[in-house]
Structures are given as structure tokens and as C-alpha cells.
């Protein structure tokens, strides 16, 4: 049984059913039923055309459900059993599913869950496990999301930016256990980038590939964080880096810059340096200027201060930092780093301790505590 094939076919079959007139929730259920049947039937009797088989079985299951519903509610109504021709045969069904799963009427968490289920073909249990919540909780989230989008017409153009935001959220969740959400996000973004030819979809794909390429070096065997400057760069995946840079360069030639392309450009400059000292900080600052211009994000400004500190010295970095709200997440960590480089270990140690207290994750807190302990031991 080829599980990745089933995962691949899930969104396509849902898309076909919805275009034929099925509502999303029922279509999704019908496809899940068809997948279950495939798991039982295919090992003994593999179909010539798996996609056609799934569409036929799922459509039959949808009709069964629709008939049961209909006969219960209005016995006089008979549902036409022939497929209803969709309006846009040329329209890409799977692309429409991307827009539906990331619809603005959904909360980000629901959009993420629905995307993983309908587009990723993951089971509710797998998604629940990845998010460390009980399975019934995730089942509720998904069924609410399905109800929310059930009434939405499928023929309106979607907003690519919303879809990209959802995929970015999935990627940032990292991974737990058997489901690698980062890998899943890359797979889906790759599909989307092919389907839409949107420069920011390419930008996000490049960003993900470049980050993913450095993942093996980012944490030690004990789970501890390893900062960029100390990473073993031979562990970086050069194939992914090459692909990321290629995707980014193609996107950049279209001269429609967006925040994901700018972030990917920064990631590419890091990936390009064979040693930390070779990092082109001048160019990185320029890209952060673009990113700040595009997003006006406080996080981008904070990261820019780090880059300025590397390019023009810690004093310049600290000057850039004074323009920012000290209450920003990670502000004390950045300040600590710059103060240490500026030759003030006492202030740096105090700020590292403060940063550790505010850290949102365990590895980050431990990393910052180690920094403070290292400086305190030298004082």
C-alpha cells in the first residue's frame, strides 16, 4: 500500500467531488471512507488507475450519504446520480482546495488543521499527535472548520497571501514524532508554487528549503540550540540550499518583491557563507531594510539590529536597538548579545538572565541560561 500516493491523491479527489457539487464536509468524509476502502481492497486487487478508482468510490459514497440525508429530510426529492458538470473544467481543483482550507473565516489553528487533513491527507490522530492535543480535540477543530467552510462558494478567487500564511504556520511548528510538519509544509508549498506561479509562493518555498537545509546543524544530540555562528556547516544540506537559491533567484527576476522573498534572500546569504566570518552582513542589512519597508514588523527591526551590529559594530547595533520597544520578545536576548560584543559582560549576563526568564521555548531558555552562566563564571 503506497501511503504517499494516497496522501497525494486525497486533495485531488476532494477537489473533484467539490467541483461536481458536493459540499466540502461531506466530500471530505466521502474521500476518507474511500481511502479506508482502498486500504482494504488494494493490497489484493490493485487498481489500474488509482486516481480514477478513488474518484469513483468517493463519489459513490458521497451519493450514498447525500441520498440518505435527502430521503430523510425531503422524501420527495430525488438527487440526480449523474455527476454534475462543474463550471470551470480548466480550473485546478486542488488549487481551489488551498484557498478553501485557508479561508479567512477560519481561525489560524483551524486553517492549519484543515490544510493538513484535506491537502496533506494526514489522519486526525497524526495531526493531534503533532500538536500535542487529544485526538477528540483535534477532531472537533477539524469538524468545526469543515462546517465553517461548507457554505462557501467554490468559484471565488482566493487570496494567495492567506494560504502562504497558513503554510508558514505549519512550517514553523517544526515536528514531533512521526510527522514532520516542516517537511509536509514544504511538500504543500512546492505544489502551490507550481500551481500558482506566484512569486511569493516561490519566495516561501525558497525560505523553507533554506531553513530546512540547516536543520541538522541547528540542534545538538541533546536537543540544545546551536547558534548560527557555531553550527557545523558541513551538516547543511547543500542540495536543498542549491534548490532554495535557484527558486529564489527565479522569483527575484520577476521584480515583485515580497516579505518571503526578502526573508529567503537573508537565509540564502547565511547559507552561502562557508564560515560564519564570511557572512555578507552588509547585504543582509540591506535585505532587512527591504523587509522592514515591506512589513514594518518589529521582529524584522529587531533582527536588523543584530545584522547592523555585525556589519557596523556592536555600538551601531545598540543604537538601532534604542529605537525599539524593550518589551518586544527577544529584545533582552539581542541586547545581551550586543553588550557582550561591546565588552560589557556584566550587563550582558544580567540581560541574558532576563531573556531566559521570558523565553517561550525550553531549548531557547536553556541556551540563554547557559550564556548567562558562561559570562557569570568569567566575572
Amino acid at each position: 500500500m503506497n501511503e504517499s500516493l494516497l496522501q497525494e491523491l486525497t486533495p485531488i479527489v476532494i477537489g473533484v467531488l467539490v467541483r461536481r457539487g458536493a459540499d466540502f464536509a461531506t466530500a471530505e468524509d466521502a474521500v476518507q471512507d474511500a481511502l479506508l476502502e482502498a486500504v482494504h481492497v488494494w493490497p489484493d486487487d490493485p487498481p489500474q488507475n488509482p486516481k480514477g478508482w478513488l474518484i469513483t468510490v468517493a463519489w459513490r459514497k458521497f451519493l450514498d450519504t447525500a441520498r440518505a440525508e435527502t430521503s430523510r429530510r425531503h422524501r420527495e426529492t430525488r438527487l440526480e446520480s449523474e455527476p454534475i458538470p462543474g463550471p470551470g473544467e480548466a480550473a485546478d481543483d486542488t488549487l481551489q482546495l488551498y484557498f478553501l482550507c485557508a479561508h479567512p473565516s477560519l481561525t489560524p489553528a483551524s486553517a492549519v488543521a484543515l490544510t493538513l487533513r484535506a491537502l496533506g491527507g494526514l489522519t486526525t490522530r497524526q495531526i493531534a499527535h503533532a500538536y500535542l492535543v487529544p485526538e477528540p480535540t483535534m477532531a472537533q477543530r477539524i469538524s468545526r472548520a469543515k462546517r465553517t467552510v461548507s457554505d462557501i462558494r467554490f468559484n471565488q478567487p482566493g487570496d494567495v497571501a492567506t494560504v502562504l500564511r497558513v503554510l508558514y504556520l505549519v512550517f514553523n511548528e517544526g515536528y514531533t514524532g512521526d510527522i514532520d510538519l516542516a517537511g509536509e509544509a514544504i511538500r504543500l508549498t512546492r505544489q502551490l508554487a507550481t500551481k500558482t506561479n506566484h512569486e511569493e509562493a516561490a519566495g516561501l518555498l525558497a525560505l523553507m528549503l533554506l531553513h530546512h537545509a540547516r536543520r541538522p546543524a541547528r540542534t545538538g544530540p541533546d536537543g540544545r540550540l546551536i547558534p548560527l555562528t557555531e553550527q557545523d556547516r558541513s551538516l547543511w544540506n547543500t542540495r536543498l540550499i542549491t534548490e532554495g537559491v535557484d527558486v529564489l533567484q527565479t522569483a527575484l527576476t520577476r521584480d515583485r518583491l515580497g516579505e518571503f522573498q526578502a526573508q529567503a534572500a537573508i537565509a540564502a546569504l547565511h547559507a552561502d557563507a562557508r564560515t560564519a566570518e564570511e557572512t555578507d552582513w552588509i547585504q543582509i542589512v540591506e535585505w532587512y531594510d527591504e523587509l522592514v519597508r515591506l512589513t514594518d514588523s518589529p521582529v524584522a527591526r529587531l533582527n536588523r539590529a543584530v545584522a547592523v551590529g555585525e556589519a557596523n559594530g556592536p555600538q551601531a547595533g545598540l543604537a538601532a536597538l534604542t529605537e525599539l520597544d524593550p518589551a518586544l520578545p527577544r529584545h533582552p536576548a539581542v541586547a545581551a548579545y550586543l553588550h557582550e560584543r561591546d565588552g560589557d559582560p556584566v550587563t550582558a549576563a544580567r540581560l541574558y538572565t532576563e531573556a531566559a526568564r521570558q523565553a517561550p521555548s525550553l531549548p531557547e531558555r536553556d541556551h540563554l541560561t547557559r550564556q548567562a552562566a558562561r559570562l557569570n563564571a568569567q566575572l
Partner: protein
Amino acid sequence: MAKYLLLKHYRGAPAPVNDTPMDQWTPEELSAHVQYMQDFAARLEDTGEFVDSQALSPQGTFVRYDGEGRPPITDGPFAETKDLIAGWMVIDVETHERALELAGELSAAPGAGGKPIHEWLEVRPFLVEQPTVIE
């Protein structure tokens, strides 16, 4: 989404506004209180925000390592302990504001006289396991 622990205290939190001890409530008031909390949990299960909920006995025992080959010394319960946890609920919500809103709602459980007890609940964010990717 982010997970939060809503912590109920037997002791240790500031006194609730409606501070009649539970053993002086009527059985109906007690039932209403329990029902409120069950309804609250059921509603969170329905919204997909529920993770876990447990009540704890007040009878705690302190244990510590006390050298190789010797049984750990236990002592307690500590009647003078300042802080005593009564139970918890874990929620997984979209925002910090939502966590505060739900804690406020849980604190409105009815107590003596059928009026909200205005119990103080401690809201603690979980530290996440995986770092998010930020350059």
C-alpha cells in the same frame, strides 16, 4: 495555538470574593458549582480548545533523594504549606487574551448563595518543546 495551565488552588491564591468555605454551602450550591465546571469543560471540548483537566487531593507528600541505599525521607502533609494546588485544566487557545477570558469565565463558577465565587486562577503558559524558526 498555545497551551496554558489554569491552576486552581486550595490555598496560596488570594482569597476569593465569595469566600464561604465549601463545607458550608448547600448541597445544591455544590452541585451547581460542579455542574458549571463540567459544562465549561464540555464547551471547550466542543471548540477544540480542551487538552486536559484533573483534580488533585489536598493530601500531598514531600519526597527527596537522601543518599545511596537509603529510603527517601518523606514527610507531610505540610499543614503549614502556603501553596496547595487543587487541580488544573490545560487549554490550547489562539491567544493569550483568550486564555485570560476563559480563566475569568471559570472563576465565575457559582458558590455560596448561587453567586460567583470570584476565585483567583493562576494562568501559566507552557514552554514549547520546539523552537520556532526565526532568523
